[in-house]
Protein backbone atom coordinates (compact mmCIF):
# COMPACT_ATOMS: atom_id res chain seq x y z
CA UNK A 1 0.00 0.00 0.00
CA UNK A 2 2.64 2.56 1.08
CA UNK A 3 5.01 1.18 -1.53
CA UNK A 4 2.33 1.77 -4.18
CA UNK A 5 1.77 5.31 -2.95
CA UNK A 6 5.48 6.08 -3.08
CA UNK A 7 5.90 4.61 -6.53
CA UNK A 8 2.79 6.48 -7.70
CA UNK A 9 4.13 9.80 -6.44
CA UNK A 10 7.50 9.19 -8.12
CA UNK A 11 5.72 8.40 -11.37
CA UNK A 12 3.73 11.64 -11.12
CA UNK A 13 6.98 13.58 -10.79
CA UNK A 14 8.12 11.91 -14.02
CA UNK A 15 4.80 12.66 -15.71
CA UNK A 16 5.01 16.37 -15.02
CA UNK A 17 8.55 16.79 -16.32
CA UNK A 18 9.06 19.21 -19.15
CA UNK A 19 7.77 17.64 -22.38
CA UNK A 20 10.11 17.21 -25.36
CA UNK A 21 8.19 18.98 -28.06
CA UNK A 22 5.17 21.18 -27.30
CA UNK A 23 3.41 20.75 -30.63
CA UNK A 24 3.43 16.97 -30.33
CA UNK A 25 1.97 17.13 -26.85
CA UNK A 26 -0.80 19.45 -27.96
CA UNK A 27 -1.70 16.96 -30.67
CA UNK A 28 -1.66 14.12 -28.16
CA UNK A 29 -4.00 16.05 -25.83
CA UNK A 30 -6.55 16.54 -28.62
CA UNK A 31 -6.18 12.90 -29.61
CA UNK A 32 -6.91 11.82 -26.04
CA UNK A 33 -9.87 14.19 -25.73
CA UNK A 34 -11.34 12.37 -28.68
CA UNK A 35 -10.57 8.90 -27.33
CA UNK A 36 -11.39 9.47 -23.68
CA UNK A 37 -13.92 12.30 -23.87
CA UNK A 38 -15.92 12.33 -27.08
CA UNK A 39 -16.18 8.56 -27.00
CA UNK A 40 -17.90 8.76 -23.61
CA UNK A 41 -20.65 11.19 -24.62
CA UNK A 42 -23.07 8.43 -25.63
CA UNK A 43 -22.97 6.44 -22.43
CA UNK A 44 -23.00 9.55 -20.22
CA UNK A 45 -26.00 10.97 -22.07
CA UNK A 46 -27.92 7.71 -21.86
CA UNK A 47 -27.34 7.19 -18.15
CA UNK A 48 -28.04 10.83 -17.28
CA UNK A 49 -31.39 10.98 -19.05
CA UNK A 50 -32.65 7.81 -17.43
CA UNK A 51 -31.35 8.43 -13.94
CA UNK A 52 -32.77 11.97 -14.07
CA UNK A 53 -36.13 10.48 -15.01
CA UNK A 54 -36.05 7.95 -12.19
CA UNK A 55 -34.91 10.54 -9.62
CA UNK A 56 -37.89 12.77 -10.34
CA UNK A 57 -40.37 9.91 -9.99
CA UNK A 58 -38.80 8.81 -6.71
CA UNK A 59 -38.84 12.37 -5.37
CA UNK A 60 -42.47 12.67 -6.35
CA UNK A 61 -43.41 9.54 -4.41
CA UNK A 62 -41.34 10.49 -1.39
CA UNK A 63 -42.61 14.06 -1.19
CA UNK A 64 -46.23 13.00 -1.55
CA UNK A 65 -47.55 15.33 1.16
CA UNK A 66 -50.11 18.16 1.02
CA UNK A 67 -47.93 20.63 2.93
CA UNK A 68 -44.88 20.31 0.69
CA UNK A 69 -45.25 22.24 -2.57
CA UNK A 70 -44.94 20.28 -5.83
CA UNK A 71 -42.03 22.38 -7.08
CA UNK A 72 -39.92 20.90 -4.31
CA UNK A 73 -39.63 17.84 -6.55
CA UNK A 74 -37.81 19.87 -9.21
CA UNK A 75 -35.72 21.54 -6.55
CA UNK A 76 -34.66 18.25 -4.92
CA UNK A 77 -33.98 16.59 -8.25
CA UNK A 78 -31.73 19.46 -9.28
CA UNK A 79 -29.86 19.44 -5.97
CA UNK A 80 -29.13 15.73 -6.02
CA UNK A 81 -28.10 15.78 -9.68
CA UNK A 82 -25.70 18.70 -9.38
CA UNK A 83 -24.24 17.82 -6.01
CA UNK A 84 -23.92 14.08 -6.27
CA UNK A 85 -25.25 12.20 -9.25
CA UNK A 86 -23.46 13.98 -12.10
CA UNK A 87 -20.03 14.61 -10.58
CA UNK A 88 -19.69 11.44 -8.52
CA UNK A 89 -21.73 8.71 -10.16
CA UNK A 90 -20.80 9.72 -13.70
CA UNK A 91 -17.14 9.91 -12.64
CA UNK A 92 -17.46 6.37 -11.29
CA UNK A 93 -18.86 5.27 -14.66
CA UNK A 94 -15.94 7.03 -16.37
CA UNK A 95 -13.52 5.30 -14.00
CA UNK A 96 -14.83 2.05 -15.41
CA UNK A 97 -14.79 3.06 -19.02
CA UNK A 98 -11.78 5.36 -19.26
CA UNK A 99 -9.75 3.78 -16.47
CA UNK A 100 -9.78 0.29 -17.94
CA UNK A 101 -8.99 1.69 -21.36
CA UNK A 102 -5.97 3.62 -20.12
CA UNK A 103 -4.59 0.79 -18.00
CA UNK A 104 -4.93 -1.79 -20.75
CA UNK A 105 -3.51 0.50 -23.42
CA UNK A 106 -0.44 1.45 -21.37
CA UNK A 107 -0.14 -2.06 -19.91
CA UNK A 108 -0.08 -3.60 -23.38
CA UNK A 109 2.55 -1.09 -24.42
CA UNK A 110 4.62 -2.12 -21.41
CA UNK A 111 4.48 -5.88 -21.97
CA UNK A 112 5.12 -5.58 -25.72
CA UNK A 113 8.18 -3.38 -25.05
CA UNK A 114 6.66 -0.32 -26.73
CA UNK A 115 7.45 1.69 -23.59
CA UNK A 116 11.05 0.48 -23.75
CA UNK A 117 11.11 1.53 -27.40
CA UNK A 118 10.02 5.05 -26.43
CA UNK A 119 12.64 5.24 -23.72
CA UNK A 120 15.40 4.03 -26.05
CA UNK A 121 14.56 6.79 -28.46
CA UNK A 122 15.14 9.30 -25.69
CA UNK A 123 11.46 10.04 -25.08
CA UNK A 124 10.26 10.19 -21.48
CA UNK A 125 7.52 7.52 -21.69
CA UNK A 126 5.72 8.58 -18.51
CA UNK A 127 5.25 12.13 -19.75
CA UNK A 128 4.50 11.10 -23.31
CA UNK A 129 1.84 8.55 -22.39
CA UNK A 130 0.21 9.78 -19.19
CA UNK A 131 0.42 13.59 -19.22
CA UNK A 132 -1.85 14.13 -22.28
CA UNK A 133 -4.45 11.76 -20.82
CA UNK A 134 -4.54 13.60 -17.50
CA UNK A 135 -4.86 17.02 -19.12
CA UNK A 136 -7.42 15.85 -21.68
CA UNK A 137 -9.66 14.39 -18.98
CA UNK A 138 -9.30 17.34 -16.61
CA UNK A 139 -10.41 19.63 -19.43
CA UNK A 140 -13.04 17.44 -21.02
CA UNK A 141 -14.74 15.73 -18.04
CA UNK A 142 -16.20 19.02 -16.72
CA UNK A 143 -17.93 19.41 -20.09
CA UNK A 144 -19.24 15.86 -19.84
CA UNK A 145 -20.56 16.54 -16.35
CA UNK A 146 -22.24 19.79 -17.42
CA UNK A 147 -23.91 17.86 -20.21
CA UNK A 148 -24.89 15.17 -17.74
CA UNK A 149 -26.51 17.76 -15.42
CA UNK A 150 -28.48 19.25 -18.28
CA UNK A 151 -29.66 15.91 -19.61
CA UNK A 152 -30.54 14.50 -16.19
CA UNK A 153 -32.67 17.57 -15.48
CA UNK A 154 -34.26 17.18 -18.89
CA UNK A 155 -34.93 13.50 -18.16
CA UNK A 156 -36.61 14.49 -14.90
CA UNK A 157 -38.77 17.03 -16.66
CA UNK A 158 -39.86 14.50 -19.26
CA UNK A 159 -40.70 11.79 -16.75
CA UNK A 160 -42.58 14.25 -14.52
CA UNK A 161 -44.57 15.36 -17.49
CA UNK A 162 -45.40 11.95 -18.91
CA UNK A 163 -46.17 10.33 -15.58
CA UNK A 164 -48.34 13.29 -14.63
CA UNK A 165 -46.58 13.51 -11.26
CA UNK A 166 -45.06 16.96 -11.77
CA UNK A 167 -46.37 19.67 -14.01
CA UNK A 168 -43.99 21.45 -16.34
CA UNK A 169 -44.48 24.79 -14.60
CA UNK A 170 -43.78 23.43 -11.10
CA UNK A 171 -40.78 21.45 -12.25
CA UNK A 172 -39.18 24.39 -14.03
CA UNK A 173 -39.91 26.65 -11.08
CA UNK A 174 -38.34 24.10 -8.73
CA UNK A 175 -35.28 23.81 -10.95
CA UNK A 176 -34.65 27.54 -10.60
CA UNK A 177 -35.72 27.86 -6.96
CA UNK A 178 -32.89 29.10 -4.72
CA UNK A 179 -30.33 28.28 -7.36
CA UNK A 180 -26.77 28.58 -6.10
CA UNK A 181 -23.92 28.86 -8.56
CA UNK A 182 -21.62 27.50 -5.87
CA UNK A 183 -23.25 24.07 -6.24
CA UNK A 184 -22.03 23.93 -9.84
CA UNK A 185 -18.57 25.16 -8.83
CA UNK A 186 -18.45 22.43 -6.19
CA UNK A 187 -19.46 19.84 -8.81
CA UNK A 188 -16.76 21.07 -11.20
CA UNK A 189 -14.04 20.99 -8.56
CA UNK A 190 -14.98 17.42 -7.70
CA UNK A 191 -15.05 16.46 -11.37
CA UNK A 192 -11.59 17.84 -12.06
CA UNK A 193 -10.12 16.10 -9.03
CA UNK A 194 -11.82 12.82 -9.98
CA UNK A 195 -10.55 13.15 -13.56
CA UNK A 196 -7.02 13.47 -12.24
CA UNK A 197 -7.49 10.46 -9.97
CA UNK A 198 -8.92 8.24 -12.72
CA UNK A 199 -6.27 8.99 -15.32
CA UNK A 200 -3.23 9.08 -13.05
CA UNK A 201 -4.16 5.94 -11.10
CA UNK A 202 -5.03 3.99 -14.25
CA UNK A 203 -1.87 5.25 -15.90
CA UNK A 204 0.10 4.06 -12.90
CA UNK A 205 -1.32 0.53 -12.97
CA UNK A 206 -0.76 0.28 -16.71
CA UNK A 207 2.76 1.65 -16.53
CA UNK A 208 3.97 -0.88 -13.98
CA UNK A 209 2.35 -3.94 -15.56
CA UNK A 210 4.68 -6.95 -15.62
CA UNK A 211 4.22 -10.15 -17.57
CA UNK A 212 1.72 -10.74 -20.37
CA UNK A 213 -1.87 -10.32 -21.45
CA UNK A 214 -3.22 -11.88 -18.27
CA UNK A 215 -1.47 -9.25 -16.18
CA UNK A 216 -2.74 -6.51 -18.48
CA UNK A 217 -6.27 -7.67 -17.64
CA UNK A 218 -5.46 -7.65 -13.93
CA UNK A 219 -3.93 -4.18 -14.15
CA UNK A 220 -7.03 -2.88 -15.83
CA UNK A 221 -9.34 -4.36 -13.19
CA UNK A 222 -7.18 -2.96 -10.43
CA UNK A 223 -7.11 0.45 -12.08
CA UNK A 224 -10.92 0.57 -12.04
CA UNK A 225 -11.25 -0.65 -8.46
CA UNK A 226 -8.57 1.65 -7.02
CA UNK A 227 -9.78 4.72 -8.92
CA UNK A 228 -13.35 4.07 -7.80
CA UNK A 229 -12.36 3.66 -4.17
CA UNK A 230 -10.34 6.87 -4.35
CA UNK A 231 -13.22 8.75 -5.92
CA UNK A 232 -15.44 7.71 -3.01
CA UNK A 233 -12.84 8.70 -0.42
CA UNK A 234 -12.03 12.03 -2.05
CA UNK A 235 -15.73 12.70 -2.46
CA UNK A 236 -16.10 12.64 1.30
CA UNK A 237 -12.96 14.72 1.87
CA UNK A 238 -13.90 17.35 -0.72
CA UNK A 239 -17.47 17.58 0.54
CA UNK A 240 -16.22 18.23 4.04
CA UNK A 241 -13.80 20.80 2.71
CA UNK A 242 -16.09 22.62 0.29
CA UNK A 243 -19.58 22.41 1.81
CA UNK A 244 -19.05 22.12 5.55
Amino acid at each position, binding site marked *: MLRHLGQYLLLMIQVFKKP*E*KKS*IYLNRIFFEMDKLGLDSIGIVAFISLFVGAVLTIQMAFNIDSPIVPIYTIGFATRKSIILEFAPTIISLILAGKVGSRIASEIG*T*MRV*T*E*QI*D*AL*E*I*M*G*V*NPATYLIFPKIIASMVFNPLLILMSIALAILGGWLSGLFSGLVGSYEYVYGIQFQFQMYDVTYAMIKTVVFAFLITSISGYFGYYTKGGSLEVGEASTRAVVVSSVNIIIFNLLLTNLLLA
Partner: protein
Amino acid sequence: MIEAKNVSKTFGDHQVLKNVSVKFEKGKNNLIIGQSGSGKTVLMKCLVGLYEVDKGKILFDDRNFSKMSFAEMKEIRQEIGMLFQGGALFDSMTVEENVMFPLSMFTRQTLEERRDRANFCLSRVNIVNSNKLYPSELSGGMKKRVAIARAISNHPKYLFCDEPNSGLDPKTANVIDKLINEITQEYNITTVINTHDMNSVIEIGDKISYIYEGQLWWEGDKTTIMHTDNKELNDFVFATELTRKLRK
Protein backbone atom coordinates in the same frame (compact mmCIF):
# COMPACT_ATOMS: atom_id res chain seq x y z
CA MET B 1 32.84 0.82 -30.07
CA ILE B 2 30.68 -0.12 -27.11
CA GLU B 3 32.24 -1.56 -24.02
CA ALA B 4 30.80 -3.25 -20.94
CA LYS B 5 33.21 -3.37 -18.01
CA ASN B 6 32.62 -5.74 -15.11
CA VAL B 7 28.86 -5.48 -15.37
CA SER B 8 26.75 -7.24 -12.74
CA LYS B 9 22.99 -7.21 -12.45
CA THR B 10 20.77 -8.85 -9.86
CA PHE B 11 16.99 -9.11 -9.68
CA GLY B 12 15.87 -9.85 -6.14
CA ASP B 13 18.20 -12.66 -5.08
CA HIS B 14 18.80 -13.90 -8.61
CA GLN B 15 22.12 -12.69 -10.02
CA VAL B 16 21.53 -12.62 -13.77
CA LEU B 17 24.78 -11.03 -14.97
CA LYS B 18 28.05 -11.92 -13.29
CA ASN B 19 30.93 -9.55 -13.89
CA VAL B 20 30.56 -9.39 -17.66
CA SER B 21 33.25 -7.51 -19.63
CA VAL B 22 32.80 -7.41 -23.37
CA LYS B 23 33.55 -5.15 -26.34
CA PHE B 24 31.45 -4.55 -29.44
CA GLU B 25 33.23 -3.29 -32.53
CA LYS B 26 32.28 -0.70 -35.08
CA GLY B 27 31.09 -1.81 -38.53
CA LYS B 28 30.66 -5.37 -37.31
CA ASN B 29 27.83 -7.67 -36.34
CA ASN B 30 28.58 -8.36 -32.70
CA LEU B 31 26.58 -11.42 -31.68
CA ILE B 32 25.66 -12.29 -28.13
CA ILE B 33 24.68 -15.93 -28.09
CA GLY B 34 23.50 -18.20 -25.33
CA GLN B 35 20.68 -20.39 -24.17
CA SER B 36 17.26 -18.98 -23.48
CA GLY B 37 17.36 -17.47 -19.99
CA SER B 38 21.14 -17.03 -19.95
CA GLY B 39 20.84 -13.25 -19.62
CA LYS B 40 21.19 -11.93 -23.19
CA THR B 41 18.20 -9.60 -23.03
CA VAL B 42 19.18 -8.34 -19.60
CA LEU B 43 22.70 -7.60 -20.86
CA MET B 44 21.32 -5.72 -23.85
CA LYS B 45 18.93 -3.73 -21.69
CA CYS B 46 21.84 -2.84 -19.42
CA LEU B 47 23.83 -1.70 -22.44
CA VAL B 48 21.11 0.69 -23.58
CA GLY B 49 20.30 1.85 -20.05
CA LEU B 50 16.82 0.35 -19.74
CA TYR B 51 18.17 -1.44 -16.68
CA GLU B 52 20.57 0.24 -14.30
CA VAL B 53 23.67 -1.87 -13.70
CA ASP B 54 24.46 -2.80 -10.07
CA LYS B 55 28.18 -2.77 -10.69
CA GLY B 56 30.48 -1.92 -13.57
CA LYS B 57 30.13 0.56 -16.39
CA ILE B 58 28.97 0.93 -19.98
CA LEU B 59 31.03 3.01 -22.42
CA PHE B 60 29.80 4.30 -25.77
CA ASP B 61 32.97 5.36 -27.59
CA ASP B 62 34.53 6.18 -24.22
CA ARG B 63 31.51 8.11 -22.98
CA ASN B 64 30.47 6.63 -19.64
CA PHE B 65 26.81 5.92 -20.22
CA SER B 66 26.07 4.35 -16.85
CA LYS B 67 26.97 7.55 -14.99
CA MET B 68 24.75 9.87 -16.98
CA SER B 69 21.59 11.74 -16.05
CA PHE B 70 18.44 11.20 -18.08
CA ALA B 71 19.11 14.38 -20.06
CA GLU B 72 22.66 13.34 -20.95
CA MET B 73 21.53 9.83 -21.77
CA LYS B 74 19.03 11.34 -24.15
CA GLU B 75 21.85 12.66 -26.31
CA ILE B 76 23.35 9.20 -26.75
CA ARG B 77 19.96 7.56 -27.09
CA GLN B 78 19.32 9.58 -30.21
CA GLU B 79 22.32 7.80 -31.68
CA ILE B 80 20.84 4.41 -30.77
CA GLY B 81 18.43 2.32 -32.81
CA MET B 82 16.91 -0.76 -31.27
CA LEU B 83 14.97 -3.66 -32.68
CA PHE B 84 12.92 -5.38 -29.99
CA GLN B 85 12.04 -9.04 -29.91
CA GLY B 86 8.40 -8.54 -30.91
CA GLY B 87 9.10 -5.46 -32.99
CA ALA B 88 7.50 -3.13 -30.42
CA LEU B 89 5.87 -1.03 -33.11
CA PHE B 90 3.42 1.53 -31.75
CA ASP B 91 -0.04 -0.02 -32.19
CA SER B 92 -1.84 3.27 -32.52
CA MET B 93 0.33 4.53 -35.38
CA THR B 94 0.57 3.55 -39.02
CA VAL B 95 3.72 2.03 -40.50
CA GLU B 96 4.78 5.40 -41.84
CA GLU B 97 4.08 7.22 -38.57
CA ASN B 98 6.10 4.60 -36.70
CA VAL B 99 9.13 5.15 -38.89
CA MET B 100 8.76 8.95 -38.79
CA PHE B 101 8.31 8.98 -35.02
CA PRO B 102 11.96 9.46 -33.98
CA LEU B 103 12.25 12.24 -36.55
CA SER B 104 9.07 13.95 -35.36
CA MET B 105 10.29 13.86 -31.78
CA PHE B 106 13.87 14.96 -32.25
CA THR B 107 14.41 16.80 -35.50
CA ARG B 108 13.09 20.00 -36.98
CA GLN B 109 12.44 18.35 -40.33
CA THR B 110 9.29 19.22 -42.23
CA LEU B 111 6.60 16.60 -42.82
CA GLU B 112 7.86 16.25 -46.40
CA GLU B 113 11.42 15.56 -45.31
CA ARG B 114 10.30 13.12 -42.68
CA ARG B 115 8.05 11.29 -45.10
CA ASP B 116 10.87 11.06 -47.65
CA ARG B 117 13.19 9.63 -45.06
CA ALA B 118 10.53 7.14 -43.90
CA ASN B 119 9.91 6.04 -47.46
CA PHE B 120 13.62 5.62 -48.02
CA CYS B 121 14.04 3.50 -44.90
CA LEU B 122 10.98 1.43 -45.72
CA SER B 123 12.19 0.76 -49.25
CA ARG B 124 15.57 -0.15 -47.75
CA VAL B 125 13.84 -2.99 -45.87
CA ASN B 126 11.68 -3.83 -48.90
CA ILE B 127 8.40 -2.59 -47.53
CA VAL B 128 6.42 -0.79 -50.21
CA ASN B 129 2.80 0.32 -50.46
CA SER B 130 2.17 -0.40 -46.81
CA ASN B 131 2.62 3.09 -45.38
CA LYS B 132 -0.96 3.42 -44.19
CA LEU B 133 -1.27 -0.02 -42.63
CA TYR B 134 -1.34 -0.54 -38.86
CA PRO B 135 1.02 -3.00 -37.12
CA SER B 136 -1.86 -5.39 -36.44
CA GLU B 137 -2.25 -5.78 -40.21
CA LEU B 138 1.35 -6.91 -40.78
CA SER B 139 2.93 -10.37 -40.74
CA GLY B 140 5.69 -11.18 -38.26
CA GLY B 141 8.45 -10.69 -40.81
CA MET B 142 7.02 -7.39 -42.00
CA LYS B 143 6.77 -6.12 -38.43
CA LYS B 144 10.45 -6.88 -37.90
CA ARG B 145 11.38 -5.09 -41.10
CA VAL B 146 9.31 -2.02 -40.24
CA ALA B 147 10.94 -2.05 -36.82
CA ILE B 148 14.34 -2.08 -38.52
CA ALA B 149 13.27 0.85 -40.68
CA ARG B 150 12.22 2.73 -37.55
CA ALA B 151 15.48 1.86 -35.80
CA ILE B 152 17.59 3.30 -38.63
CA SER B 153 15.43 6.31 -39.52
CA ASN B 154 17.38 8.77 -37.37
CA HIS B 155 20.82 7.61 -38.63
CA PRO B 156 21.95 5.63 -35.59
CA LYS B 157 25.59 4.99 -34.79
CA TYR B 158 24.63 2.01 -32.66
CA LEU B 159 22.09 -0.66 -33.52
CA PHE B 160 20.75 -3.20 -31.02
CA CYS B 161 18.72 -6.22 -32.11
CA ASP B 162 17.12 -8.56 -29.60
CA GLU B 163 16.47 -11.92 -31.25
CA PRO B 164 15.78 -10.32 -34.63
CA ASN B 165 14.65 -13.55 -36.25
CA SER B 166 12.88 -15.39 -33.46
CA GLY B 167 9.45 -16.60 -34.49
CA LEU B 168 10.19 -16.34 -38.20
CA ASP B 169 10.52 -19.07 -40.79
CA PRO B 170 14.13 -19.85 -41.85
CA LYS B 171 13.88 -17.97 -45.13
CA THR B 172 12.43 -14.78 -43.64
CA ALA B 173 14.89 -15.09 -40.76
CA ASN B 174 17.72 -15.14 -43.26
CA VAL B 175 16.36 -12.07 -45.03
CA ILE B 176 16.36 -10.18 -41.74
CA ASP B 177 19.93 -11.30 -40.93
CA LYS B 178 21.19 -10.20 -44.31
CA LEU B 179 19.41 -6.88 -44.01
CA ILE B 180 20.98 -6.14 -40.65
CA ASN B 181 24.36 -7.17 -42.01
CA GLU B 182 24.05 -4.88 -45.04
CA ILE B 183 22.92 -1.92 -43.00
CA THR B 184 25.76 -2.44 -40.53
CA GLN B 185 28.38 -2.34 -43.25
CA GLU B 186 26.73 0.34 -45.36
CA TYR B 187 26.55 2.87 -42.52
CA ASN B 188 29.48 1.55 -40.48
CA ILE B 189 27.29 1.00 -37.43
CA THR B 190 28.23 -0.75 -34.21
CA THR B 191 25.63 -3.51 -34.23
CA VAL B 192 24.87 -5.78 -31.28
CA ILE B 193 22.64 -8.79 -31.91
CA ASN B 194 21.16 -11.22 -29.37
CA THR B 195 20.46 -14.60 -30.85
CA HIS B 196 20.26 -18.30 -30.17
CA ASP B 197 19.93 -19.09 -33.85
CA MET B 198 22.89 -21.03 -35.26
CA ASN B 199 22.06 -19.97 -38.79
CA SER B 200 22.68 -16.34 -37.84
CA VAL B 201 25.90 -17.30 -36.13
CA ILE B 202 27.24 -18.93 -39.27
CA GLU B 203 25.82 -16.30 -41.58
CA ILE B 204 26.75 -13.00 -39.95
CA GLY B 205 28.86 -13.73 -36.84
CA ASP B 206 31.71 -11.22 -37.24
CA LYS B 207 32.29 -11.27 -33.51
CA ILE B 208 30.64 -13.70 -31.14
CA SER B 209 30.32 -13.54 -27.36
CA TYR B 210 28.90 -16.61 -25.67
CA ILE B 211 27.03 -16.01 -22.43
CA TYR B 212 26.66 -18.98 -20.12
CA GLU B 213 24.58 -18.60 -16.95
CA GLY B 214 25.20 -14.88 -16.85
CA GLN B 215 28.93 -15.05 -17.45
CA LEU B 216 30.98 -14.28 -20.52
CA TRP B 217 32.16 -17.80 -21.30
CA TRP B 218 33.83 -17.60 -24.69
CA GLU B 219 34.64 -15.08 -27.44
CA GLY B 220 35.44 -15.64 -31.11
CA ASP B 221 33.88 -15.48 -34.57
CA LYS B 222 31.96 -17.67 -37.00
CA THR B 223 35.08 -19.64 -38.00
CA THR B 224 36.61 -20.25 -34.59
CA ILE B 225 33.27 -21.26 -33.11
CA MET B 226 33.25 -24.38 -35.30
CA HIS B 227 36.52 -25.63 -33.85
CA THR B 228 36.25 -24.79 -30.19
CA ASP B 229 36.91 -27.30 -27.47
CA ASN B 230 34.96 -25.34 -24.86
CA LYS B 231 32.53 -27.91 -23.48
CA GLU B 232 29.54 -25.66 -22.65
CA LEU B 233 29.85 -23.86 -25.96
CA ASN B 234 30.03 -27.14 -27.83
CA ASP B 235 26.91 -28.35 -26.05
CA PHE B 236 25.18 -25.19 -27.19
CA VAL B 237 26.45 -25.00 -30.75
CA PHE B 238 26.23 -28.67 -31.59
CA ALA B 239 22.94 -29.31 -29.87
CA THR B 240 21.22 -30.48 -33.03
CA GLU B 241 21.86 -33.24 -35.51
CA LEU B 242 22.20 -30.65 -38.26
CA THR B 243 25.04 -28.71 -36.65
CA ARG B 244 26.82 -31.92 -35.69
CA LYS B 245 26.76 -33.00 -39.32
CA LEU B 246 28.01 -29.58 -40.32
CA ARG B 247 31.14 -29.98 -38.21
CA LYS B 248 32.20 -33.18 -39.93
